[in-house]
């Protein structure tokens, strides 16, 4: 199974992620509508899901919870970026992913190579017991460092 769900309310970002992963041979279902994503994760099984935390209409965490409830062993990557206007930072990914097995963080802006590496890494883990998964890989992004607040 190499189908990946991507949920981000920004069409352009969905397209970029879809393009990057499709080039690696993954089949990508991209969604910009959080409510449609809620239905999709309850209905369809994916090898992994990449879900933006800041969706337009509903909270991305709601989609993550629904995905986790429907498919306890599906790896989920939560994505989040900085909201420049508000100055809010990204959530504490290492802390959240340490508490919830199979949950990984990807801070925006991410390098295309980091996205591909992360997806390859999480899909290389044997499916089954989510608790047996190793801790989330740490991604370094020196290019994004100056923007951190």
């Amino acid at each position, binding site marked *: 199974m190499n189908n990946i769900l991507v949920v*981000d309310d*920004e069409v352009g*970002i969905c397209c*970029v992620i879809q393009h*990057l992963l499709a080039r690696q041979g993954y089949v990508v279902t991209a969604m910009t509508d959080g409510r449609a994503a809620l239905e999709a994760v309850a209905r369809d099984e994916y090898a992994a899901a990449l879900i933006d935390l800041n969706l337009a209409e509903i909270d991305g965490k709601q989609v993550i919870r629904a995905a986790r409830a429907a498919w306890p062993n599906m790896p989920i990557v939560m994505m989040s970026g900085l909201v420049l206007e508000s100055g809010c930072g990204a959530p504490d990914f290492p802390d959240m992913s340490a508490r919830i097995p199979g949950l990984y963080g990807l801070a925006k802006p*991410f390098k*295309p190579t980091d996205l591909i590496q992360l997806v390859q890494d999480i899909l290389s883990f044997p499916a089954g017991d989510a608790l047996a998964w190793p801790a989330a890989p740490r991604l370094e992004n020196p290019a994004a460092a*100056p*923007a951190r607040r």
Partner: protein
Amino acid sequence: MPTILIIDDDHATRAALEMLLKQKKFGVFLAPDGSTGIRLIGSVCFDAVVIDMFMPGMDGLATVRQLIKIDPTVPFIAISGYAFTDRRQGAPDFLGMAIKLGATAALQKPFDILDLLEAINRALEVRQRLLTEIKDRAGGLASVRKAS
């Protein structure tokens, strides 16, 4: 494969640059306006950005200012289809302004694709140099902290 973002409201320019740069094995992504481009830059680290200076809504200079706020290490190349360089007429030199803001190159449309490729390669070198500097400084700071 270096990834390049092209921000230009002109569909024909976007399509032509996409085709030409893909032939040269670049990963190419497109944005039809400044705000879309900025949202993409906020999500993906591109190796270089090509920005049209004249666009409706958020213009090229405003886009450049936002880009610098998000990631000052991303090199950008300014392109423009209008030549307002004659200051006697009171028209501003937007490409010159882009250079002052840090553009690694400024090209007047129509430009030779070889000039754009040269500008992109130079931009990628600048990017690489900046990332190495950041890494070195971070390494230096870490050793100072360790020593103290």
